């Protein structure tokens, strides 16, 4: 699963994680450079990169995170990008608009670059393409629906 970070200056960053629950109840987290372990004790979450030192972490329930004096928006699993150029991705709306057409349904396989939606914004129809290959987890909008900026449209895993 990919996690996207958008800072207040529109700089993008992402992290890829794979989580595997182990029999012990601990969760193994695989990322590009290695693995970490996530453990819950007394309802509190701790993470370790070396299985020696454990660091407390906190659930984030929304989309906001400030890191070193920079505000970020954080999203999981989809690529939020502009829709007006019909660019790749665009599974989260970047501006208010209306859904004109939906080409996919849950369970569908999509390839990177496939057109999944058509959205009308600023009086122009825009093709919204997937930036990732994967399986459609959920389609959260329907044809004719008006959407706000920042709204999740489709989840692809």
């Amino acid at each position: 699963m990919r996690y996207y970070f958008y800072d207040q200056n529109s700089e993008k960053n992402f992290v890829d994680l794979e989580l595997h629950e182990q029999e012990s109840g601990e969760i193994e987290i695989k990322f590009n450079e290695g693995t970490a372990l996530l453990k819950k004790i007394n309802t509190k979450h701790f993470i370790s990169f070396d299985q020696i030192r454990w660091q407390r972490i906190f659930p984030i329930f929304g989309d906001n995170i400030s890191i070193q004096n920079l505000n970020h928006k954080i999203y999981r699993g989809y690529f939020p990008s502009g829709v007006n150029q019909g660019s790749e991705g665009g599974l989260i709306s970047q501006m208010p608009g209306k859904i004109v057409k939906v080409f996919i349904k849950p369970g569908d396989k999509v390839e990177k670059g496939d057109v999944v939606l058509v959205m009308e914004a600023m009086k122009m129809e825009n093709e919204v393409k997937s930036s990732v290959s994967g399986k459609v987890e959920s389609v959260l909008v329907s044809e004719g629906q008006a959407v706000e900026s920042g709204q999740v449209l489709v989840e692809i895993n």
Partner: protein
Amino acid sequence: MNKRILICNRGEIAIRIAKAVSELGGTAIGFYTDFEKEPAHLEYCQEWIYLSGTTNLETYLNQDKIIELAQKSKADAIHPGYGFLSENPSFADKVKETGIIFIGPHAQAIHSMGDKAVSKKIAKDAGVPVVPGSVGKIDTINEAKDIAKNIAYPVLLKAVAGGGGKGMRVCNNDEELEKFFPAVQREAKSSFGNPDLLVEKYIVNPHHIEVQILANNKGDVFHLYERECSIQRRHQKVIEEAPSPFIGSDEKTRQNICETAVKLARHVQYDSAGTVEFIMGEDKSFYFLEMNTRIQVEHPITEEITNIDLMVNMIKSAFDMDLDFKSQEDIQIRGHAIELRICAEDSETMLPSPGMIENYDYELGKGIRFDHCLRPNREISSNFDPMVGKLVARGFDRSVAIRKVRNALNKLNILGLKTNIPLLKVILAEETFQAGQYTTFYIDKIKPQENLNLNITPQELLIHAIEKEIGLTN
């Protein structure tokens, strides 16, 4: 104490008041509004009242509505906290007319201390030193030179109508005064449309030092020693300490400034909690700035070093009850306390930065106190003050208090919202601060905001991604 107290405030101070009322056995009554339907302070109030409206003017500043609700709820007293209606003499008067007690000083004290020019005159009459200078405007360079000779250089030449650092010049001698006089006059005319100038003593390396007062209706006026609040940005305090590191072990100066504050409070027949603010120069001469006729944000550090509960005693004083202590000798300094104001603000620009609190956590321990109104999933809007909490540490001495407050700050996690925590960390680690040698120019001169750690490591991103994941699946 079987009394009903209506709290006309919100945020951390409303919680602080509610806790004190509850401790005294009274009933705390709190407001909720259309703007803030679930304010944190309701959790600590025994009764809740709906105050309709979506702006501060319709709610916490709505005098008639508040008085109407106070009567309806059969409140014995109103506690205004700080800000909002706390220093509004007409509100204090109106409350009194209804027979409800206003927890604060009598209206005349609020009125006379609220006007800077009037309060300066009253202070002078009471024999309290005010910044020496010309009485009214000066017309000629020679007049300015005469005054400068009297009060000694350096002097500050400034526009009568001035403000915001404009139309001001420091002059170190006659030559500079001659040179700058016409320039400041021109600047005053072009900036404020009024060329009139004042000359007053320039306080070199100034410190903001204030004295806590607690008084009652029986004529008892006590001081609870001083606080130093020299670390400021935009003329607002960020870090406060008690006692003042600048006064240090100079007990003569300490006694002198505290007794001066008591003298002024007596002069205006002060009868509640209040604070007399002074500016102190590098030679430890001090001058009256203003008097705040309310409980102040930074009151906890005084509570920590004196072991006296100011909020409880302020309420007791309003009901003519005996205070927790009997004499000035009962009030002694033990150790050192530091308060950090935790604000929703950008650490670099030091400007408010409203946003969402996604989650938060902190750790208490020996000597640590955190007065706050943080709640998870809570929006900090631009309608209210950006301060969300006050982290206070008390230690055996100043170095212990610094150690404790730094550790507590490291353990304070506020997720989502941008805060001034990164800036506070830089200040607490900085030499001038650690040496206790800062002045009110600290932030302008030392510029701690330029030493912020702005590097975001891949590990931080990874951790936040995991935090997002557990937030989604929890």
